[in-house]
């Protein structure tokens, strides 16, 4: 094994080269856990979404960032890029079938479905 320290690490150790083991802060792991206040808020029965309801949730996960980046429902490649939506930016030409320079969520969804996405 060879050792390589990052510059930052080297800088941090220079004043204190290879001193004793630092104290490790002890803590008991509880995973998954929620605090009592959150636990109390969960009394409502909710069955896990399945089928069409789940697909609608998947779609809303995809729609959220799209709508945030779009203006009046239309998204340009530049807007996608600026919002960090690299997947849409990279596939923009394939999504923008009409070559209009701006896409709607329905264009994006159709593109995903054509590639095999399980969306309604």
């Amino acid at each position: 094994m060879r050792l390589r320290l990052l510059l930052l690490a080297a800088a941090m150790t220079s004043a204190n080269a290879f001193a004793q083991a630092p104290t490790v802060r002890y803590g008991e792991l509880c995973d998954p856990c929620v605090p009592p206040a959150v636990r109390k808020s969960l009394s409502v029965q909710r069955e896990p979404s399945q089928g069409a309801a789940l697909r609608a949730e998947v779609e809303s996960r995809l729609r959220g960032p799209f709508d945030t980046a779009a203006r009046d429902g239309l998204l340009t490649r530049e807007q996608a890029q600026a919002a960090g939506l690299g997947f849409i930016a990279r596939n923009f030409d394939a999504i923008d079938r009409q070559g209009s320079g701006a896409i709607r969520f329905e264009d994006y969804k159709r593109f995903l479905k054509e590639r095999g996405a399980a969306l309604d």
Partner: protein
Amino acid sequence: MGATTLQYTATAGHLTALFPGASRQPEASFFYVAYTLDGQAPSTRPITFFYNGGPGSASVWLHLGSFGPRRIATGAPDLSGPQPFPLVDNAETLLDVTDMVFVDAIGTGYSEAIAPQTNGAFWGVDNDAAVFRDFVMRYLDVNSRNTSPKYLYGESYGGPRSAILASLLESAGVQLAGVVLQSPAMNYLSNCDIRENSTNCYGFLPSYAAAGAWAGLATPSPGPAQLPDYMVQMRSYAKTTYLPAAATFLSTALAPDALLGPLQGFTGLQASLWRARFNMGPTIFRNNLKPGTQYGRYDARVTGPPAASDNDPSSSLITPSFTTRIGEYLVNELRYTTQTGYVMSADSVGVWDFRHGNLPVPDSIPDLGAALAMNPGLKVLVLTGYHDVATPFLTTEDDMARLSSANITVRNYIGGHMTYLTDDSRVRQKADLAAWYRGTR
């Protein structure tokens, strides 16, 4: 590793995650330890990011317990050996398959927010996943790994973190090859340990039967070799017989007499307790299976003397060793020293913002669905332990089944939450992981 010696480089240090967008402002300083196999082409060599969960846990359990080049030999489920448990070379390291980056969540390990940000700003489901995305993207950029096949490996709360992170990475244009989910808590609303009064506990029943069998208190009590076949039967009993009865109990508080005897037989837990607490959560089970004994939550094969009801002997018996060994390992083997302590566990769970997607706690199955929608080639491997009563395998299987995706593979092992601590299971798990990684290429 067996007869082979792997030459590798260990890199310990910090890397700054940057806010996305034009500003590229520093966001947080992540501590990580990376293991890269020498003499490989970085552009084609697989790379996997590992993290535990909690939320609030350092990634020390995966780092020093699972598939890194060095591991702590706990002897699980027999944790009676001298402590601290020894740190040994890991014959099952994944380093022959993938480079590995073990990264600590903000506020754990040595990872911290960069002012004016605070650690607390990242203590929420969405912000945590977003800052992990920014770390992964920075790591790939700085280390010229953007063309490497990329994988995530998350445990427990690291499961929902992985699903959301996978969706965020795909959306950002970072295509993943695969996601490994170790005993994941994908949907907090399907786990009756989190809300026993309203979630059906059927998903725990086969795990209780496995625990009762290991303890020799159940009828039947099959050995490990027969357990997988027996668990097929118990899944069926749990879903067709116990589930509807538990649903009735949740709405009427009436336990059906006819099932109390069979449930005592299957699990070893007294019929009177089944009558009183028919929708049986794991805390009651592990504190009452046998008088004078407390069974483990992460690994119900592990026992200890009676203690506080929320104590977990399978955690409290290994935590001191992991705490000691990570401190020694970073300084003595990796030569990484700082003036502050390595934080095993942040006090973040009490203030964590669990809200996600219009729910008060995360259901990350839709996020995994979104990642699969953007990347139909994404493969998902789910690893579960039969004796885990924190994230029981049947609950996890049913969580994953919601997506009806052929890309998802589930494997079960003898053992608890950290299946890799059990020697035989770690060997099997390594073989399964190696085959799965090959299948994702």
